[in-house]
């Protein structure tokens, strides 16, 4: 039976609000990307590179697995 399509979800929106209602613009600036990329991430339309995932996690001062979650698609 084929494994379900792997998916990466994130808690960026919640973390922004927990960090003094940080704006997307502000987060984008600190992570070194455009606001459109933050919007795409929050909407689940884009999976970031490892580098960007770590940079975003660093902005929130949290480990990367608290910002991003991997679902499904077990490795063989």
């Amino acid at each position, binding site marked *: 039976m084929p494994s379900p399509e792997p998916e990466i979800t994130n808690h960026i929106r919640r973390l922004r609000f927990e960090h003094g209602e940080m704006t997307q613009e502000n987060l984008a600036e600190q992570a*070194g*990307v*455009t606001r*459109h990329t933050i919007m795409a991430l929050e909407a689940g*339309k*884009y*999976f*970031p*590179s490892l580098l960007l995932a770590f940079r975003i996690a660093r902005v929130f001062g949290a480990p990367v697995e608290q910002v991003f979650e991997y679902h499904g698609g077990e490795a063989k």
Partner: protein
Amino acid sequence: MSDSEKWGWWTLGVVALIVAAYGAFVAFLGHGPATPSVFALLALTALPASSRRYFTGRRFDEREHQIASKAKQAGFGALWLAFVGLIMAIYFIKGWDATLTVPVWEFMETLWWAVTLLLAVEALTTIVLYRGGYHA
């Protein structure tokens, strides 16, 4: 709207203008050496790149790089298909041994259309990937 999306819409607008201008030119003047002059409009696609905003304010992050790269691939893919299609069409109509005599202006016009196709597909792909989301 991001700068890349704006570039996409701008380029599609220029392509539409080229098609309309070309159609009007052919309708009023006929198909001749003067028609490729409408392709001077192609120069407009360079306008966003040469604007001050491009040099001072445009940001290109990893997602935009990936989208731009996919869009370029799609553009060149379309160009390749068109080239193969054209060669096959010539083969079916004229045969492999045929000799083609093409006026320089028609050859030039074909090249312009190739550039127009490349830019149109690149712009369209950019817009679609931005709208629909793009997963690396």
